[in-house]
């Protein structure tokens, strides 16, 4: 089979005509879409303080655990504020709050992605 044959066969492909209700059906779907309230934005204003506190806490914990594990070899002085933050986080459970916020955020992003929204 030559290219010319292929060109002739594939260019002369049959066209189909959309069914009579196609445009109506699309518009119905569009109107349904338009009637859906916009997706709730992630509540950054409420979550931000918790996220910041959580990040500081987690950072403090990491620094504290690193310095504790290497204390015998090369003691690294840990800033007092980090130690205090770590103690506060452990006492109040802030690290769990942070983790929950992060998981919620990722779940929302993932759901929106699945729903095909930016």
């Amino acid at each position: 089979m030559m290219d010319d044959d292929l060109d002739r066969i594939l260019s002369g492909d049959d066209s189909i005509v959309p069914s009579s209700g196609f445009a109506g059906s699309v518009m119905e779907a569009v109107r349904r879409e338009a009637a859906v309230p916009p997706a709730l934005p992630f509540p950054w204003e409420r979550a931000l303080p918790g996220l910041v506190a959580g990040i500081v806490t987690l950072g403090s914990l990491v620094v504290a655990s690193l310095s504790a594990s290497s204390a015998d070899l090369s003691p690294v002085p840990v800033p007092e504020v980090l130690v205090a933050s770590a103690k506060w986080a452990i006492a109040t459970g802030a690290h769990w709050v942070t983790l929950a916020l992060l998981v919620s955020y990722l779940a929302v992003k993932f759901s929106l992605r699945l729903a095909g929204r930016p």
Partner: protein
Amino acid sequence: MSATDDQADVERVLSGDIAAFESLVRRWQGPLVNLAYRFCRDRARAEDMAQEAFLRAYRALGLWRRDATFSTWLFALATNLYRSELARIPPRTVSLEDAPALRDSRTIDGGLEERDRDHVVRQAVLSLPPKYRDAMTLFYFHDMDVAAAARSLGLPEGTIKARLSRGREILRAKLPRRIGTVQPKEA
């Protein structure tokens, strides 16, 4: 079909007039359904895919940059969707060996009726690896315009030409063993 009409309708939709979207749908429903049909060869599925393409276009209308025509943007969006849909649920293709047209439609001299041969060739395009299938489908859909096919697929023209060449090569290797030249019908 006027690019100005498209732009005016898009502006109306973006300013809240949802009904203006119907003009866009009516203007482009034929091409979008036909493009989908060439990808799947199933009328009902083609309409479903085209409807989803319009819906996505509606959602993303604000993202259309005016540096390309609305139709270019719409075809690229639809092509992306159709390719994803076919990757998710591949089209029903018949292997060349099992094609009923080949078994049942031979003429007395052993050749195939022209209509059946064309059907088999189109089915063969669907059974190509996706990158060649997509290039060939878009190229012929856009009346053999490489640039338009390249824009729809978001690829350089050179890549499209290479894929077309390879796709044809594969088809030529597959088809001649089974399909000879169509014999002219006796008067």
